[in-house]
């Protein structure tokens, strides 16, 4: 089985009479897309804006970021079981519009947080500042529940991304990367001399705005399961969470999971990447025990020598991270963990809420409590008024010149725990 990923590099994003890719520019028919998204009865209004890298633009709050993709050999969009009909993701052909994304904003449920600055110091910390972003600003109708509201915004983003992805269907990619997928025994037979490695992929599942979906299934109702690495590239995993934005995985992160990509890049060279175990981060102790027991069992079943474990979020999930680590190490399988830190604004506090002597190999995505001042931007898409009450904000966050001082926590993706960034923390 193979997945071929065809990347189409996009250099510009503009509105135009027809949604299409021409001369490396993605044109978007504003009316057509607006109408499509407004068909959802839960949405009262939808407006589209464009934000380019380097512009004096702040987007806040950010619900999700999604990369447009399409499967040219089949009808419909990606995100099977959620925004399209069910199919098994991760094989065949996938076309990707690189350099653009859909960013969803507007009134979101509960706290209005997550910042993307398209220029200035905040842009250095956020991967989405480097993309041409189609920003969808949506307001919900009144009288719906917070759960309906969240679902409507989530599906709206996926729908918009699938709509843009259609423009890539007939385009010849600028580069094509091919991934081979084998039955489990073949990994062991074909690469007898290489260390066998798996990836334990922890997903937020703590409730409203802290949920993640696997083929449309809310992962808090899922037991740990196996996944081919390429399944993420067709949208098997969708984000439903965005609060405490710095270390939440947007759908864009899942589609481009760096652990998956970098393990695949080295597969057959200095390691053999056998597959992924997808697990959750539920809030009760019984759930944590069940998920970590079954995760360790699946890792052992894969017959690997080592795993990389990535966390999503902080605090409560630190416990899941340590339970996964100790149970897998307990089976004689080596672990490396990717997390971020909450070491206080001055960096002197203990960084994690839980720990184990077995967690002796940790990669850090940086201290999320560190402060940054973001200068005022000429244009705001969304609303910065709630800055003092968002995670990472505090009384006095907004100064009279409209610059804002926040913890890195407030910047979406700043301390990502999939290892997406080059930011880290060291002890001084």
């Amino acid at each position: 089985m193979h997945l071929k990923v065809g990347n189409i590099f996009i250099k510009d994003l503009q509105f135009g009479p027809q949604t299409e890719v021409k001369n490396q520019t993605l044109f978007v028919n504003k009316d057509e897309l607006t109408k499509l998204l407004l068909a959802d009865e839960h949405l009262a209004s939808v407006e589209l804006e464009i934000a380019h890298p380097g512009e004096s633009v702040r987007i806040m709050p950010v619900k999700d970021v999604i990369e447009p993709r399409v499967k040219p050999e089949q009808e419909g969009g990606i995100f099977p079981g959620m925004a399209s009909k069910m199919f098994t993701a991760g094989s065949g052909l996938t076309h990707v519009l690189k350099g653009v994304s859909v960013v969803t904003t507007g009134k979101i449920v509960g706290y209005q947080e997550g910042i993307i600055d398209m220029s200035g110091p905040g842009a250095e910390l956020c991967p989405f500042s480097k993309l041409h972003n189609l920003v969808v600003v949506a307001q919900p109708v009144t009288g719906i529940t917070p759960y309906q509201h969240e679902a409507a915004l989530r599906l709206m983003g996926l729908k918009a991304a699938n709509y843009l992805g259609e423009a890539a269907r007939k385009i010849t990619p600028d580069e094509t990367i091919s991934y081979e997928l084998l039955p489990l025994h073949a990994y062991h037979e074909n690469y007898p001399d290489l260390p066998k490695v798996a990836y334990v992929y922890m997903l937020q599942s703590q409730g409203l705005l802290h949920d993640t979906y696997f083929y449309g299934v809310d992962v808090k109702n899922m037991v740990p399961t196996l996944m081919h690495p390429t399944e993420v590239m067709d949208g098997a995993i969708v984000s439903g969470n965005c609060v405490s934005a710095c270390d939440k995985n947007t759908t864009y992160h899942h589609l481009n999971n760096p652990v998956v990509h970098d393990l695949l890049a080295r597969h057959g060279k200095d390691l053999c990447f056998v597959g992924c175990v997808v697990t959750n981060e539920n809030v009760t102790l019984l759930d944590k025990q069940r998920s970590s027991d079954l995760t360790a069992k699946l890792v052992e079943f894969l017959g690997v020598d080592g795993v990389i474990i990535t966390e999503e979020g902080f605090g409560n999930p630190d416990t899941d991270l340590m339970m996964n680590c100790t149970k897998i190490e307990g089976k004689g399988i080596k672990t490396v963990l990717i997390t971020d830190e909450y070491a206080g604004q001055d960096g002197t506090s203990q960084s994690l809420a839980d720990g184990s002597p077995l967690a002796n190999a940790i990669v850090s995505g940086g201290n999320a409590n560190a402060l940054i001042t973001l200068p005022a931007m000429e244009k705001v898409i969304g609303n910065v008024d709630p800055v003092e009450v968002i995670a990472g904000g505090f009384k006095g966050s907004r100064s009279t010149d409209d610059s804002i001082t926040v913890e890195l926590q407030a910047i979406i993706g700043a301390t990502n725990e999939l290892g997406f960034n080059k930011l880290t923390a060291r002890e001084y």
Partner: protein
Amino acid sequence: METKRIVVYLNQFFGQIGGEEEANTPPQSFDKPVGPGMGLQQLLPKNCTIVGTIVCGDGYFNENLEEASATVQKMLDNFKPHVVVAGPAFNAGRYGMACGTVGKIAHEMGIPAVSGMYPENPGVESYRQYLYIVETGNSAASMRTALPSMAKLAGKLANHESIGTPAEEGYLSRGIRRNIFVEKRGSERAIEMLLKKLNNEGFDTEYPIPHFDRVEPAQALTDLSKVTVALVTSGGIVPKGNPDRIEASSASHYGKYSIKDLTSLSSDSFETAHGGYDPVYANQAPDRVVPVDALRALEKEGKIGQLFPYYYSTVGNGTSVANAKSFAAEIAQELVSEGVQAVILTST
């Protein structure tokens, strides 16, 4: 280059006043380098001049901490140094504590400070976050290796040059986590670390897990019928509108709210400020997080003596352990002094 002013702090011995018999000498100041300061001056960058030396007996400093600190602060105020160099103290405990305190005083005045100590000197653990402490041997025999590192760091600090990691500069870790950008993204670093671990090669974790405090639960109380019970939560339940502006994450403070005469927490008057969990159920019925209704029922039944008329609330989400510890210490002290004998802690 602008001339930078350096002040050196020494104990009675290195300050050439005398041995243990002079340990009770109060702080004195000299407007020139003394003892190891002479050697240090030779090693400092050309634009750095030792303009003063403060000498104090180790016994005096530790036994008269407040007075000694106040005097040292006044002397530093007069010298107006760009950098303070204290010691090196090697493994001398009282000297190390004095050097650390001087570093803390300087830190609070906005002046960077450098010292040198043996890693086991108690001054390291107590003061490392306030100043740079160069690692030395356990006796003055290592003066020759200590001074160049201290001079180099002092020079860099005076000239506002960036300071490298403990390993690069030779100082003992200050326990401060600082963000930096590195060449490779996290996923790549994780794979390289895993391969080293699998090959039994050495690797450096990016976050060494510290020793965790594990608190043994206290013995259960057998009879609560005469006991005052208090409610304390990290679930962020606050009066509607969050009057104390407790942060949704990284709380810098906690609130104390009256529940006198309340039989439950109504959704009209209370809500959660917590940004880290699904707030819908907590906002529908705040008793789910702070169970005033259940405690009132127990009070009526005589199962508990009484419910303490206030509850304490903060937000656990992303709140540093250091902040949480300080809230807990204050709350506990207040509860004890009010005669509360049992607390129900609710988390979320």
